[in-house]
């Protein structure tokens, strides 16, 4: 094949390659957002606290890092109940609690560090609209102090 024919064929192939149209153009931009935690509601000692509403959903839902500040309260028990059935009755399965008690229910000393509390909520087909948290003290057991509990509430159904 002569050099001339080769050049003609190459020229034809180049002509077939799609070229970007000059009649259109495109550009893109980045969209950014930064989400920060909503301010936590005030939590006076020994009083019920309403949590933000929890949206029910299928499977496993978690509400993380809710800080409960119990300044000055010798907290021994923490109750987490649906707001419409709020009670201090420990026998209610609906109310779950945690304080750092040992197996005998006795507590030797106050928690030296903020405590991570995990509450599993398997008894409800869906989350209640609100939860109520309250603390209960046992006189003489725990010295007054400043305690912070970090709640992780998990619903499983």
């Amino acid at each position, binding site marked *: 094949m002569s050099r001339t024919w080769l050049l003609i064929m190459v020229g034809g192939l180049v002509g077939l390659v799609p070229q970007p149209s000059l009649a*259109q*153009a495109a*550009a*893109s*931009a980045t*969209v*950014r*957002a930064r989400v920060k935690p909503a301010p936590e509601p005030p939590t006076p000692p020994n009083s019920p606290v309403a949590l933000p509403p929890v949206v029910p959903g299928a499977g496993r839902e978690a509400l993380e890092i809710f800080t409960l500040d119990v300044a000055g309260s010798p907290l021994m028990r923490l109750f987490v109940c649906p707001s419409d059935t709020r009670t201090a009755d420990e026998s209610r399965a609906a109310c779950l609690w945690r304080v750092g008690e040992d197996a005998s229910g006795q507590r030797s000393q106050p928690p030296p560090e903020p405590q991570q509390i995990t509450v599993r909520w398997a008894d409800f087909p869906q989350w209640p609209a609100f939860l109520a948290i309250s603390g209960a003290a046992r006189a003489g057991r725990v010295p007054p102090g400043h305690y912070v509990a970090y709640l992780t509430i998990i619903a499983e159904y």
Partner: protein
Amino acid sequence: MSCGLAPAGYKPAFGVTGTRRHLLAVGAAALLPIAAGGQASSTADVRATVVSSLALTRTGTTDFGYFENHAHVETISPSSPAPGQSTAQFIASGTPGAFVLVSFDATVTLCAAAVCSLGTMTFTPNVASSPSDNQAGSTANLTSGSAVQLSASGSYFFWLGGSLTVNANQKTGAYSGTFSMSISYQ
């Protein structure tokens, strides 16, 4: 076949013979004037508009800034973003007075730390447009697929605002996504 170019018995010096010589003769015959018995003619207008190439450039970023993770809708006005917010600007340039079609994404998914499995939010754009570089005087709610007319200087300006759906207990952190716009001559 005789057309006067290759007389019978002619042996070309450059070695074209046989079929190849006949093809040359036919091609040459097509160049000769034809004495037709009747003639007719007609004309057709062929029109073309020469346009400048289109360009679309972007400057800046649409940034919502910081907001809290309770359920709500966060918005950026494309013509007047609030303090702490910013809007990306797109500039179209081409033939002055030409109409161009503008297309852009209906929604954009923003992902937490560029990892969508960690959390997402849906961004719905609101594009403001103006033939002049005047954001405060621009008109919001441009519809994708609509046409705009380039200015006398061959430009058109767009600003990207929009809304962001924030879920209750939305995972905290930085989110980002990519919005795309394209233009073409109508």
